[in-house]
């Protein structure tokens, strides 16, 4: 995540959005300049990001942006405006009162935006406003506009200025205005390109419409010149192509790592996969959706309860890095053993990713060892102090073993035997029934006050308590543990099962014991 800062204004920007393309974001006017930072990575990146800093806007004069054909304001280095051209002018605090032409919109903190098209006949008021702002006007020149024949597309030249591309089926019409002539021939229109050239003298008047017929595919320039050199020339580059239209497609695809997936005939994708790496950031190419530009993607995560986790938009190229755009939920999806990630593109289709985490035993073992190292000693002193033991030890441990933990229904608690001094919880298990994710209680967890009680479960009253809880909840299995010694009990059975010391099972060289422990106590995946 990057931050764009201008004075006391701050805009977080997802760094992935900036990779490899132009990204536009609105900024307020500021005389303090615009700087980038990377919170948490200042020491590594601030030098590089410093090169992107832009100095602030002056408060003693206006700042002029020329609006190009794509509607983008380009900062003008000089202060000379051209007739017929659209400009956006940032007015510093206090400067707006002298403006009487065009639209002025407040930008906050006294700054204003003045947008105008410079008219061919500049009034006295406007001329004095320009003069007051130190703005000059270029010499008078005709104004050229393509009117009445919409372009098929716009291309851009090397300088980034766009020009229209007309189809061969339409004769483009050029409107010439901004100059008044008294005699025919004062103005001449020249059109050249694709190996041809033609000109026409324009009759006396102040506005002309000229239809350009017989244009073969190719690049052209239309230019209007006046007999007097005091009046400037106007040029309008354009292109003619057989079929200039470019139409957006309904096509959708999904890339997970190296694999590209296409939808079925209905537009849907259903894919069994492990999303852990994609959301953990370790999968090259991540999880990337390709669909029409600006299409909205509603992202849902279902792990027993379906919830909308993000409303995202594909960018102007039709690309969306799904995993990078759901940061608050990365951990949730990465940790979950099972779940459905639905990316809903409305009528264009649903991408349904059936997540099934592939457990890497070595990775899990390392996490459990880390838990023992960081919390084990404290947890041993908390045996029997259930709320603290749960928060510090049991919940993280059961989470690593892919169990959800929930309290017993109050109506089930009231008749349970209290003699053992143990606490009863339920371990949830996620499963997929058809396409639906279902979270159900799988086992009763009886948490004993000490190790001896687990090792002598019958005498300590744990069997009785487990049987009662199983009857109440309709479950058949219970885990008996003090947090460290783990045993299983089947409801109604009178046989002592073996127990495993979790601390021993995770030790180096005891891998087979660990696998037995996992088999008994982790969620079956």
């Amino acid at each position: 995540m990057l931050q764009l800062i201008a004075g006391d204004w701050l805009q977080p920007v997802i760094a992935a959005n900036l990779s490899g393309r132009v990204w536009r974001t609105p900024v307020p006017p500021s005389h303090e300049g615009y700087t980038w930072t990377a919170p948490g990575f200042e020491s590594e990146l601030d030098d590089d990001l410093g090169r992107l800093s832009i100095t602030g806007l002056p408060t003693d004069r206006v700042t002029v942006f020329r609006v190009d054909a794509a509607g983008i304001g380009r900062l003008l280095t000089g202060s000379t405006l051209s007739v017929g051209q659209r400009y956006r002018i940032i007015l510093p605090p206090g400067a707006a009162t002298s403006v009487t032409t065009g639209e002025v919109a407040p930008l906050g903190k006294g700054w204003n935006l003045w947008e105008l098209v410079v008219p061919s006949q500049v009034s006295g008021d406007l001329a004095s406003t320009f003069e007051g702002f130190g703005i000059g006007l270029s010499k008078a020149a005709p104004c050229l506009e393509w009117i009445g024949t919409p372009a098929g597309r716009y291309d851009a030249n090397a300088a980034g200025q766009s020009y229209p591309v007309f189809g061969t089926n339409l004769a483009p019409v050029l409107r010439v205005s901004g100059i008044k002539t008294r005699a025919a021939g004062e103005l001449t229109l020249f059109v050249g390109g694709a190996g041809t050239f033609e000109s026409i003298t324009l009759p006396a008047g102040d506005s002309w419409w000229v239809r350009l017929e017989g244009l073969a595919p190719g690049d052209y320039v239309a230019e209007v010149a006046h007999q007097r050199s005091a009046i400037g020339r106007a040029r309008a580059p354009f292109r003619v192509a057989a079929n200039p239209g470019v139409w957006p497609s309904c096509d959708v695809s999904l890339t997970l790592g190296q694999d590209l997936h296409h939808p079925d005939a209905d537009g849907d994708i259903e894919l069994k996969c492990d999303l852990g790496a994609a959301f953990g950031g370790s999968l090259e190419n991540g999880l990337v959706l390709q669909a029409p530009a600006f299409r909205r993607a509603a992202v849902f995560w279902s792990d027993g309860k379906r919830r909308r986790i993000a409303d995202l938009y594909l960018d102007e190229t039709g690309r969306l890095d799904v995993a990078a755009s759901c940061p608050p939920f990365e951990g949730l999806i990465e940790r979950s053993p099972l779940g459905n990630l639905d990316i809903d593109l409305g009528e264009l289709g649903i991408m349904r990713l059936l997540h099934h985490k592939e457990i890497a035993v070595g990775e899990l073992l390392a996490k459990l060892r880390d838990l023992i190292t960081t919390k084990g000693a404290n947890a041993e002193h908390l045996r029997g102090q259930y709320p603290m033991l749960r928060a510090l030890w049991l919940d993280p441990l059961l989470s690593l073993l892919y169990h959800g933990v929930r309290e017993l229904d109050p109506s089930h608690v009231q008749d349970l035997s209290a003699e053992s001094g143990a606490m009863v919880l339920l371990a949830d298990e996620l499963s997929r029934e058809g396409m639906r994710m279902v979270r159900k209680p799988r086992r009763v967890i009886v948490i004993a006050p000490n190790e001896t009680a687990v090792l002598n479960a019958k005498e300590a009253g744990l069997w009785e308590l487990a049987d009662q809880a199983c009857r109440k909840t309709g479950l058949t299995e219970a885990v008996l543990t003090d947090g460290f010694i783990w045993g299983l009990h089947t409801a109604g059975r009178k046989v002592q099962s073996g127990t495993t010391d979790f601390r021993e099972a995770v030790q180096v060289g005891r891998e087979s014991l660990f696998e037995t422990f996992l088999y008994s106590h982790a969620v079956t995946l």
Partner: protein
Amino acid sequence: MAINLVITTADRVRENLARLTGHALDDPATVAELLRHELSARGVSSRRSVCDNVQAQLAAFTDCPREDIRKMLEELERSGDISSAPGGRVAPAPLRLVDLGGNKFAMFGGMHASALRREFPSAKITCEQTQRWLALPDAPGAEFMDNLKVLGGRVMSTARWAGMDRVQPCGAEWLDDLSTRLELDHCRPDSWDFESLDEWNVYVPDPAVPTQRKRWCRSSKGAQGRLWRARHRLGWWMHAWTGGECPTVANSLKLRQDDTMRTAFSLDFVSGAALTFLFTKGTEIVLLVDAFLPLAEYRFLNVSGRQSRDETGACRYRFDLDTWEAVRPTLCERLHVELKDTNS
């Protein structure tokens, strides 16, 4: 081939433009068509720029306020011809044909009508304001489907288009879902500091107030509620769901416009302040809808009937009597509105 430069007149150009768009220049459908042309040519643009350029095209012939063009652009975004993203950016949407049966299709997408006529010469293409239809003389054949594929288009059912199976109906369950989302994914009050917003309004579903438009109350007058909105200085609305306090003092969930509409209908229902839609029964049903509908239900109505919008912003839908029998229960069950026959 030699270039031929011909002096012409504004009237000639005006006639040609009307022929190209298929409508007189003072017809709103012309504005819609020019917006499609402009955006098809640009690919991606800003709302402001698109409106400016269309206004410049029309300015030579007729006085069309930019506000009217902006509203038409919003209508095209809502109908599905244009896609929009935060920050006022817009792009043409791909071509989708919704199968209405009888070789007739409702058409959605940024492709303008003159290109459609060129690509589908055997089809009859008609238009009423923003809504366009395509009728074929026979069942769509391989050639038609191939053309459609080349253009990136797709045929779909009305159910797929509307998407009512993918979104909850209005009601308590929708509100519960919002509250869950508020817990999981809320914005802190200071997250609004960087938006330049006017005063917050809160939605109060008062049964004595007949329209949703008038149920938005200014927070400065002490109104309380969970659904909030404020106008951004650049013109658009921002919406939020809270636990009951203004988003500037409490955590909030940012809502899209579509979610806001679904939430307003849900609040109306659970507060006993459901809206009443009037309909008139004759040879057809004319339904007056004086509210912005959630997207799925809006799309459903749009392809089920014929829509027209009056100057107050209210929509009139015309339905065949048979179609009305299917529409009526859908409206009642999903929006919980009351339908009242003006004849009774």
